[in-house]
Structures are given as C-alpha cells and as structure tokens.
C-alpha cells in the first residue's frame, strides 16, 4: 500500500468516526430522536411487569414521538340511504319516529331493526329468524357447536356480511376480534386517519353469535383535522405501560400484553345518546391490547387512562 492510499483510508476512517461522534453529540439536540426510551425506563418496566405478573409479547416502539390533538365530528349518514343498504327489500320496511329520543327507527319483520340516532350513531339489529323458528318448533340447535367458532371464522362472517350489504365504511380497517362469550364475538374495525395512516379507534363493531351476524353498531367520525400547531412530545411507551400496570394492580395469574401502539381513541361514545356532541378534540393514546382482547387507552400526553370522559351534571 502506498502512502496516498493509506491517507485515503485514514481520511475515510476519521470521517466516519466524526460522523458517528456528531450523531451522538448533536442529534439529541436536533430532537430527531429525542427522548428515546432509556435503559433505566426499560428496566423499570421490566421490574413492574414481573412484580404485577404480566409479560410482554410484543416489540415496543423505542423512540418518543411527537403528536397533537385531532379535531373530529360525528359522521351523519343519510337515514334513507342506510335503510336501502341494510334492508334487502325496502318495501316492507316500516319507519317509526321516536321524537323523544331524537332517532329514526326502521323495522322489517324479516330482516331486523335499524335505529339511527341524531348524533350519527346507528345500530342494526338483525332479525334472528332461524333462532325463532328453532324455538317455535322446539327443535335442537341448528348452529355449529359454539366451541368450534374461531376468531378467524367470525371475521370472515363479518366481512362477508359487510360486503354483501355494502355497509363497511371506506376508511375502515380490521382491528381485532373480541370474545364476549362462547361463540359470541365482536369484530372491531378502526378508522384510518387520512394521509398519516394513524389509527383512530372509534366504533364499528359487528357482533357474531352462533355463526351469524346479530348486531352492527357504528359511530364513525368525520372531518378529521390534525392540529399541527399544538404538536407536543408524547410520553414514552414504557412510562405509559408502567402507569397502566399501576392502575390494573397485580394479577393472580400471568397476563400478557399482545399489542402496543400509538393512535387516537374516541371516547365520546354513549349508546344512551345523552350527549349532543357536535365537535370535539381527541388526544393521542397509547393503546394496549391484552391477550383476551381487553383494550386500554392511555392518554399519550398525560398517561391517564382514557375512559368514558363525558359527564353531564
């Protein structure tokens, strides 16, 4: 190796070393990867998981992110269009107006009942024709044994139903299948925030019982607006999990955390329709899914558990 080549190699080596040093000195200040989860925080979480009898079955995001509030409005769908979609034959559909509850009810003996509330929430109760006949005839169960019902099958049934009726919102994405009881599942969909693809956990649930859809509940959001000017750093995921464990307390059996992610949770949901909410802001949340489908939402700015926040005196 001649002298010139040796110089080249040394220049490249020192250039690389300097870049590495600059990365470690200045990048935290540039805040591109600011506040990434420290070793101490990870250690604290591990201790807490052990102490409270939990195990972590997922990778955690290692960097702290910036986020902001999301302004949302309920999506008001045209009742007559919904009626057309949900009922295969609209001729026999009877419309009942219940003024006291600010809702419109469409009922069809053969197909079921569609209740559309003024605030955008709607519920479709599927007529259990087969079940009724079974009961009337006193025959044995015609459905497949409930034990055989799997989550994947439940999802398939839900997807087929939604496809057939064309009622699945365009921005709906499959989320999870919750198990309510033997053979009873809820197939849950979330809403995808335009452009950023950040999940918004609102409500679109298809309930399956005995291999058939029994109920659909929807409270979908409209006009999602990200408040760029209020962008703030969210708390590390480890801090959120420690907070959750403290809230839940020690378990008698080992429970596992299956999924953790950042998203938005819309807690303004109330099936009693007491709240006439028109427009509201939702904070980013750390969403934690347990092995049994239980879901917890922790405010990603404060670490507080987000529950039904609406209260009216």
């Amino acid at each position, binding site marked *: 190796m001649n002298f010139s080549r040796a*110089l080249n190699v040394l220049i490249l080596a*020192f250039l690389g070393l300097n870049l590495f040093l600059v990365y470690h000195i200045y990048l935290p200040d540039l805040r591109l990867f600011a506040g990434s989860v420290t070793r101490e925080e990870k250690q604290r979480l591990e201790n807490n998981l052990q102490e409270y009898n939990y195990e972590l079955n997922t990778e955690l995001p290692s960097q702290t992110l910036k986020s902001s509030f999301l302004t949302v409005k309920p999506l008001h769908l045209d009742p007559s269009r919904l009626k057309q979609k949900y009922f295969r034959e609209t001729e026999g559909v009877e419309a009942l107006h219940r003024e006291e509850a600010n809702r419109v009810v469409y009922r069809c003996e053969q197909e079921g009942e569609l209740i559309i509330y003024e605030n955008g929430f709607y519920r479709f109760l599927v007529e259990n024709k087969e079940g009724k006949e079974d009961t009337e005839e006193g025959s044995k169960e015609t459905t497949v044994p409930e034990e055989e019902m799997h989550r994947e099958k439940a999802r398939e049934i839900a997807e087929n139903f939604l496809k057939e009726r064309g009622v699945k919102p365009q921005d709906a994405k499959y989320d999870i299948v919750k198990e309510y009881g033997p053979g009873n599942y809820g197939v849950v969909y979330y809403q995808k925030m335009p452009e950023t693809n950040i999940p918004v956990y609102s409500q679109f649930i298809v309930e399956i019982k005995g291999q058939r859809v029994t109920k659909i509940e929807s409270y979908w959001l409209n006009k999602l607006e990200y408040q760029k000017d209020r962008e703030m750093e969210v708390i590390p995921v480890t801090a959120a999990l420690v907070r959750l464990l403290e809230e839940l307390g020690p378990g008698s059996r080992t429970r596992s955390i299956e999924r953790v992610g950042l998203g938005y949770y819309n807690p303004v949901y109330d099936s009693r329709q007491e709240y006439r909410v028109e*427009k*509201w802001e939702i904070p980013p949340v750390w969403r934690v899914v347990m092995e049994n489908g239980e879901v917890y939402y922790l405010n990603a700015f404060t670490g507080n558990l987000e529950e039904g926040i609406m209260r009216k005196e």
Partner: protein
Amino acid sequence: MEKIKMEKIKFIILFYLVIQSMVFTYILWFGSPDYEEIEYTVKEPYVFQERLDIEEAVTPSAVVMPRDGEGVYFLQPGMPACDTIWEKSRELLRDSRREETEALQAAGVEEPEAVFYFDPPFPLTGGILRAEEENIQVTGLEIYELPEDDGIREVFWKVHGYKEKGEEEKVLAGSSGSETWKDIKTEMEKAREKEARVYIKVKEEEIEEQLPEGMNAALQGDAGYIYLPGENVELSSLFLEKENFSAEKLIKAIFLDPNLVRKIEERDQDVIYTDGEKFLNFSGSSFKYSAPPVEGGEISPDYNQALKKAGEYLCHFGGWPPALRLEKVSYYAGDSHFREERQRYRARWNYYHRGFPLLGEGKGVWMEFNDRGLASYHREVWGFSRKEGVEKEIATASEVMEKIGGIYSGEDEENKAMPQTLKQLRLVYFAKEENESLAEPCWAAVFDREMLILQAHDLEILYKGEVEDEFFPGT
C-alpha cells in the same frame, strides 16, 4: 509535483479530521462546558383575585339597631351601610381585649347599640380578639357603648357563639378605638336615615297562630323568632345582567397545563373543556366544573380551614365580587363506601341586591371540596342592571300567611300533602327560568318538605317544590 501537492492536501484534511475527532471525543466524554444552565420555568396558574382573609369571608346576615318606638332598624347584606358598618366594627373588634363577664353589668348598660347576626358563623380567631388564642364561631355580636366617664373603655362587645367542639361560648371584650367608634356611630346614624328598613321581631307562637291548622313554626337557627318588615315596603322588579366571564382565563386558572386541554362542543352551544380528569362545562357565561378523581378524597371538620379554602377557590377561579355573599358552609361526614358520599365541605354564595338574595334555577355559586381539592363548582353570577317598572307596595307578612293557609288548607288534591313546619319566611328576588334576566320581588316560605315562592305584590305562586338545598331552589 501534482502528486505531492495532492498528498499535502490529503494530509491537511486528515490532520483536521484527527483534531476534530479529538475535540468531539472530548465533548462526548466530558459533556459541553459551554451549555447554559437549564432554567426550569414552572407556569403559574392564572389567579383571578388574591384570596381574602377568612375574617373577610363572612359578613353579617343582619345588623339590628334599636329604634324609638315600635320595631328596629334592620340592615341586610347588599346594603352598602351594612358592609361599611361591619367593616369598621371588625376593625374595632380586632383591637379588643377580653374583659370579665361581670364588667358590663357593673357598667350599668342594658341596651346594645347594634346587634350583628351571623349565618354562617363569623370566625373569631386569636388574630382578631388579641388577648385570646382560641377560635370562636360567632353567631351574634352585641356592641354596647359605655358611659363617657368610664375613661378607659368606650365599647363592650358581647360575643355569642361556640367553640369548635360545640360548647356555647359567651365572651366579653372591650375596645377603646375612639375615632373608629365615632365613625361607626356616624355610619349607623346615616343608615337609620337612609337605607335601614324598619322590621319587627315576630315570635314563633305569633306566626303559628296565623298558619293553617296542623302546621307549626320552627324557625331556622332555633332563635324562636324572625324579623319581618314592620312598615310598608315598596319594591320593583329588577333587570339583571350576567357577569362577563373569560373562558380562556378560567382554563388557565383551573388546568395545570392548558396545552393538554381539549375542547368538546355540544349542539346546544355548551362547550366542555377537559384534560381527562377535570371537566369545565361552559353554558353561556355560567359554568360547571367537576373533577371525579377528587371526589374520592376526604376531609376533617375544620370550619376555619373550610372558610379559607372556599374563599381561596372562589377568588382564584373567577373572583369574589363584593355583592356575592357566602351563605352557607356545611360539612358532610359522608359514607366511606360510596365515592359520591365521601367526606366533603359544601359552600354556597348568593348575589344580594339591597338586602335580598337573588334566587332561581342555577343562580349563585356553590362548590364542594375535600383534602384533594375542588371536586365540583357551579357559578352563575348575575348583577343588578336597572329597575323595571315602578316601586310598588308589597303584600304584608300577614297576607302571606293567609295565602299560605289558603294554599295548604284547600281541598285541592294536589295540596293534600301539607308540609308540617315553617322554617323561614323572608323577602327575596326570584328569576323565573323562562325569563332569567328579570328578577321579581317575592316572599319565600321555606317548609320542612318544600319551598314556596310567592310574587310579593300579588302573591302569585312562582315556585312550589322541593327544597334541595335549604331555601335555594334548583340546586
């Protein structure tokens, strides 16, 4: 030549990179000595008003002065004279020294110059009555002027009240603030001529005689009597205006970090602000606040501490306008099993105009708090704008009693469940829900089970219903 020149340049670059790497290594190893020390700035919450001393929190519910002839001169909250006389009297009381209880008898003075009634009790602390370090909750204060030749003392204070443990306490104190006492006397004289109304003392038995059969009177405070107007009173309706409130300032006062507050707009124009733990619900310029995590707290009974906290919360979260009077401070021992029934203090304030409180659905201020802080807070403060119509003579107390008899003795099915006991009868202003900016003069009769509000001129029933919080409807 070219090659040598190129190698020289490379050598200079390498030398520079080596030096730079040494500097970076030093910075990374030892940290940067040039960084300025980080200054942590804790945002102070916005404060509407500095809190008042607890002795300023309680004002007299009435000031009674003797009168030649029948009745007494009567001053009530919301009358400027009532506030002035009390303010100066408090100053005089602050410099008082304890005296032997026989001293007043020895001085041969029998009739007080004025009597101050307190509901809620006035907190007489060591700081006010200089010679004593004990706390007395004062329900009545009598002020006596001594004969001029006494030389040392000019006035005696007879203090009626109880200590924190509930023992009844009577204390005698003497003051010698000549200038202050002269000022008080001048103000009392002015009040007699202008603002004071002539009232008469009416005993329970006299009231019972006029009540329908089966109804008795047990007047509030176990005094056995109430003061009622002794002369014709002329009153008109009032136009009110709501206090002008800045939501932005209140958010800064209530929430630790306003950046974390989210806004929820309702279809009926109500706006809720919340950080997930505290909820501030604005409806027009009134608001309701609640903090569910605070509701689970506890608190020990300590009247003075409760007054201090109540005053602090009101001052910090909206301010304490002078016409807003603290009406009640109650302690609830609660039930530890139910969060909503936990130990707490409840305080309420009412707006007063020239002696009479303003009542109505949602009117006034009330709050609940415990050791964790403010659990709930409602504020809807209206103030006097202008008179509506002419002042007209109102119905007398006897006419009111007759009307009550008619209402409850009637054969009407609705009135079969007659209340048993009359607890209070007083003049108030009342704003109906359908026209909340107009307050009408009314007679308010408070019974054990319900409350009756009668328009003071024609005795029309404006409200007849449950007493949810003593004699304040709609709370």
